[in-house]
């Protein structure tokens, strides 16, 4: 059952990203990524990380992608994106991607041993995660809140229209 669920979610996730590569419509791209991130949230749930799964669905598939869709609506290109003229960049990217995949497999070969072990079976409860977040990771947590404030202020300052014009 778990295997079936994993392969279903993995196929949905990879299929949505492949669909994003072939689609020309930006709004469809964003919606396909919502699907991919929601499927990834399900995979996080399978990995006994329920809190991260919920955060993934609420923040990634919800908030961040809604932000993208709002910006796509504001930009609203009438004529769409014209097809690529330079074909060689596609071949170059295929070659680079192949090199990268070989590199990643070679680099990760050692860690496969650690991953094939039995691993932790128990569910990582949000309570334990919160305890860790507010004791050991308290300073990073506070710094993150400052980062969010800075990003918020920066985004507002950047897109604000000048009043005097």
């Amino acid at each position: 059952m778990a295997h079936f669920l994993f392969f279903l979610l993995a196929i949905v996730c990879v299929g949505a990203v492949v669909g994003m590569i072939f689609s020309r419509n930006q709004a469809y791209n964003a919606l396909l990524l919502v699907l991919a991130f929601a499927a990834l949230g399900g995979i996080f749930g399978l990995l006994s990380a329920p809190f991260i799964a919920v955060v993934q669905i609420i923040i990634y598939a919800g908030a961040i992608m809604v932000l993208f869709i709002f910006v796509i609506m504001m930009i609203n290109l009438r004529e769409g994106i014209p097809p690529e003229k330079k074909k060689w960049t596609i071949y170059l990217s295929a070659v680079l991607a192949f090199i990268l995949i070989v590199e990643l497999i070679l680099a990760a070969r050692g860690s496969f041993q650690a991953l094939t072990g039995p691993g932790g079976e128990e569910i990582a409860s949000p309570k334990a995660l919160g305890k860790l977040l507010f004791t050991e990771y308290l300073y990073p947590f506070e710094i993150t809140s400052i980062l969010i404030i800075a990003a918020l202020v920066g985004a507002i300052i950047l897109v604000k229209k000048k009043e005097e014009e």
Partner: protein
Amino acid sequence: MIPGSYFFILSVILFILGVIAFFVKRDLITQFLSIEVMLNAGNLAFIAFARALNSLHGQVIVFFIITVAAAEAAVGLAIILLIFRQKKTIKSEDMNLMKG
């Protein structure tokens, strides 16, 4: 129980697809979306290792990555909006101000 290497291979595949999308696509928004795909592939690897090593620290790191991704999306989209206002295009080929 599903072996952790399955999740790791899925994460590698997602990362590669993100890289390919970043190079193949020509508009800034889709390239930005493919950066998000790569970030999520990293998250998946972190959580797979967190379970394999039976430690919660990987999940905390993923929590921080998601927060930073939210901040990055806000600022990045603001920059894309500014570029669109000034140049009326979001194709990355037209960003040639620094070309010699």
